[in-house]
């Protein structure tokens, strides 16, 4: 998403990522990040938590309007109050690597086999 954000900003839109992994998002060189300590799959907030979701989106929009320095990360003050998230089923790449452990090195190195 970091690379996508860069393209959009370069195309003339003001952009911000609401990122649960700000270190990774920032590594792409993006203009604005609102960092949020929420679990994957619930970036905005818990299902049905309208007030919480609204507060997070409002804070993100404020950061979009207020950040003046390219590359700024604004750490949002929200903390996760919901239950510990449940993991989904293991994705295909994890199953593949458990069958062929030597491929882990390729994934770590970003050495992605051509299709």
């Amino acid at each position, binding site marked *: *998403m970091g*690379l*996508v954000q*860069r*393209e*959009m*900003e*370069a*195309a*003339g*839109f*003001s*952009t*911000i*990522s*609401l990122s*649960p*992994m*700000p*270190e*990774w*998002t*920032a*590594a792409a*060189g993006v*203009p604005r990040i609102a*960092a949020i*300590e929420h*679990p*994957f*799959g619930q970036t*905005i*907030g*818990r*299902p049905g938590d*309208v007030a919480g979701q*609204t507060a997070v*989106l409002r804070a993100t*929009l*404020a950061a979009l*309007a207020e950040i003046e320095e*390219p*590359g700024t990360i604004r750490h*949002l003050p929200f903390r996760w109050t919901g239950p510990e*998230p*449940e*993991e*989904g089923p293991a*994705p*295909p*790449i994890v*199953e*593949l690597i458990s069958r062929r452990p030597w491929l882990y090195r390729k*994934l*770590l*190195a*970003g050495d*992605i*086999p051509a*299709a």
Partner: protein
Amino acid sequence: MGDEVDSYRFTSRATTRIARAWIKREADPARLIPWTPLTKPLSESTIALISSAGVALKEDRPFDQQGERQNPWRGDPSFRVASNQTTTEDIQVGHLHINKRYAEQDMNSVFPIQRLGELAEQGEMGRAAAEHYSIMGYILDPTELLRETVPQIIAGLRAGEVDGVVLVPV
């Protein structure tokens, strides 16, 4: 617990290790950061959302999960369009790297279209864009995403006279 967000609060040890390796490779302090300031106040701006949760309308083609099962190195790099009227009942989620249950229960957890509409109605921002976009975030090689998908989304943002974009990675 500090004031800063911990990027690894919810990641497994294996994921943390992969993330740190990719971050080390991708980070380039010398790279120029693109910059487009918001030229209007938020209260006059049109905002669009981009979610990487793999959200497609039920009437639309789902994100291709079978292809990724066949080749786990390649996620579907296409995109889908939602409208500012889209609700949780209208959507399906195709993403093999998140627990989809939360998004299926309430789309706004990953794609806050209703929340954005409410903020616009309350006058906190100008307008919600007519169209919002979703991609599926597990893309190890971004070539096709950047070459095919992103230009089409950018064309949609232009046509919708969008000023600001909120990207929601999951």
